[in-house]
């Protein structure tokens, strides 16, 4: 690869559905990453939610892509796994029933078809315990691994030349997610509701 004059454009992307327990891992990880680290100019942080294919433009624009997501590799719940470059599957399904089933693999495949696949790609994945608990919080095994997942991301970004430093005390940026769906507010009320209503 030829030396670049400009630093690479790096995208740190969290994906998942915060309403379905451990499905929210990727979004919560990127939310915490934003809260805890100062990032260089060439790094962008994005809460991708379940936007599927609609994230393709962000992926196209990135030279390097780091993704937080829930994975299913049949591991113990809470196990973290880094998947890199060609190991990350990409495909386009045509037998699926709904556009909503466009997974992240398809986003990658679409970026590839459009001729702008990231040069470097790393997925920091976490095996979920529970994806079916509607409205539920992250489960303990997954929650316990958030710090470690952020450490892994920091190490990967450092490898890519982007040094992220912990924010100083008192450096509290606005949360990546607002309107009561940020991590603590979302889960605070959910926990209370569950205890009351059962």
């Amino acid at each position, binding site marked *: 690869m030829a030396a670049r004059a400009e630093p690479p454009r790096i995208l740190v992307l969290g994906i998942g559905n915060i309403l379905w327990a451990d499905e929210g891992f990727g979004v919560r990880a990127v939310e915490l990453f934003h809260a805890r680290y100062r990032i260089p100019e060439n790094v962008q942080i994005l809460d991708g939610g379940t936007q599927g294919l609609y994230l393709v433009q962000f992926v196209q624009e990135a030279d390097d892509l780091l993704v937080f997501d829930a994975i299913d590799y049949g591991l113990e719940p809470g196990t973290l796994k880094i998947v890199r470059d060609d190991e990350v599957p990409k495909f386009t399904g*045509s037998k699926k*029933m*709904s556009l909503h089933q466009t997974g992240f693999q398809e986003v990658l495949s679409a970026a590839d078809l459009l001729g702008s696949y990231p040069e470097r790609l790393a997925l920091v994945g976490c095996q979920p315990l529970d994806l079916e608990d509607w409205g539920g919080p992250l489960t303990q095994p997954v929650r316990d691994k958030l710090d470690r997942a952020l450490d892994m991301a920091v190490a990967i970004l450092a490898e890519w030349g982007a040094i992220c430093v912990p924010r100083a005390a008192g450096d509290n940026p606005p949360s990546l997610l607002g309107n009561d769906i940020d991590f603590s507010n979302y889960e605070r009320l959910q926990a209370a509701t569950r205890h009351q209503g059962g």
Partner: protein
Amino acid sequence: MGTQTPNGFNLDNSGTRIVVDPVTRIEGHMRVEVNVDSNNVIRNAVSTGTMWRGIEVILRNRDPRDAWAFTERICGVCTGTHALTSVRAVEDALHIAIPENANSIRNLMQLALQVHDHIVHFYHLHALDWVDVVSALSADPKATSTLAQSISSWPLSSPGYFKDLQTRLKKFVDSGQLGPFKNGYWGSKAYRLPPEANLMAVAHYLEALDFQKDIVKIHTIFGGKNPHPNWLVGGVPCPINVDGVGSVGALNMERLNYVTEIIDRLIEFNDLVYLPDIAAIGSFYKDWLYGGGLSGKSVLAYGDIPENANDYTPGNLSLPQGAIINGNLSEIFPVDHRDPTEIQEFVSHSWYKYGDESKGLHPWDGVTDPHYELGPNAKGTKTNIVELDEGGKYSWIKAPRWKGHAMEVGPLARWVVGYAQNKAEFKDPVDKFLKDLGLPLPALFSTLGRTAARALESQWAGYKMRHFQQKLIARIKAGDSSTANTEKWDPKTWPSEVKGVGFTEAPRGALAHWIKIKDGKIDNYQCVVPTTWNGSPRDPQGNIGAFEASLMDTPMADPNQPLEILRTIHSFDPCLACSTHVMGPDGQEMAKVQVR
């Protein structure tokens, strides 16, 4: 033989059962089971799906002003339309009037979503039901160019362009197991386009993929960010500062001009690419007019796109409102979201519990109490269903009914209502589409008609966007920069108990949210979404839902390759739970087929 349903279908489940089930590791999501007779014609259809289990579980005791942010997360595709429906429900409950500019901006965002969703849905999901990607490899690029130029003046049509594209496509097909297109039923007899038309469509598939990202910039401009644009009870969170140079986030002339340019481009894409493609596909499939289901019988549209702010009566809505039942297009019924006897949800065949399941509940009094049990004739177990028993409970989707009728919602429903109202903007394009193909009006009630209605609506929406953009700019130029009404922002100004309803036409159909607010907090919140209407199971009277109805009497070329089932179900643009993105080690097969 068989059973006659009140809504006019003869069900016969004696033949071979075919199960089409997207394999996910999470839940069933959507699954279709049909019985075919000895000629492989579908004689019974059962659709089941997973929806969320009631947003009220999550929203109870939250601040109503934040509800949009939660509902935006229900679903990955309809984010904006849920948010819009939510703020309308809260505004209705609290009698909050929004400024005209906010109405125009919301309409622009909603219409942009319509166009975006329709284009992406057609090219990315649905086109592959009509277009054989692999066949495109054997196309003659020169002949493809001739074909493309014969149907449109779209400039990307040279032999060299198609040759390059074919080379790229070949690379993908050759990489791995058919590369990105590995899941198709390529080569099936149910595909009818010649190789050149297939190649042209693949080119447009890629162009659409590239173009869609510009359409969503409208959401970034008006919503402050994308994905997950911001919304606001009382207006839009988008200040207008026309003279502002470099003011962060504010709407200035430069941004407005950029929106105008995007609108011009999407109108051009609709006119020169999307519509001609639909006409071309239609010409090869014009005798494949299955899939109509309820569309020629019972359709429902709530209406949307208010011309003037705060008036949601039918006369002020650009998209039509009305209900048609029993195929009688000469009588259009008004729809009242507040009348407890009109819209009701039933659970006799859904995995929920009511005290009396012979009755339906109006959404203001809606209950979501899960109760998962299989019918006595189901095969398999609760964790591994081999075959559903449609005589019992068989879906996580409730069965909404309008005055007891199963209804189809969506672009075709909207266009049927607009057509029946004799409105030229809906009637003329439909008549032209049918006339060009030499088809009579009943041909509209089909899978092809549903697909065509979506394209016609995308075109209509583009021009409507131009209208609201001009209106917005004119008002701004006249000095009106108001975008939000914050008079009732403080919950202390609210009555202690209120209820409201907000409705929209989401890309895939009629959507409404019903809210009850008590002491400043959400007390109950129910959404009835388009796919609940279309994907509904049977009701206590035995009426089948729109998906089920649409599959009836369709002949299958090969039951092992249920292309016809997917084609028709896809034509509804179904909206299912969005939790299926979990990354697995392989490009997993999304649908498996069992014939037994």
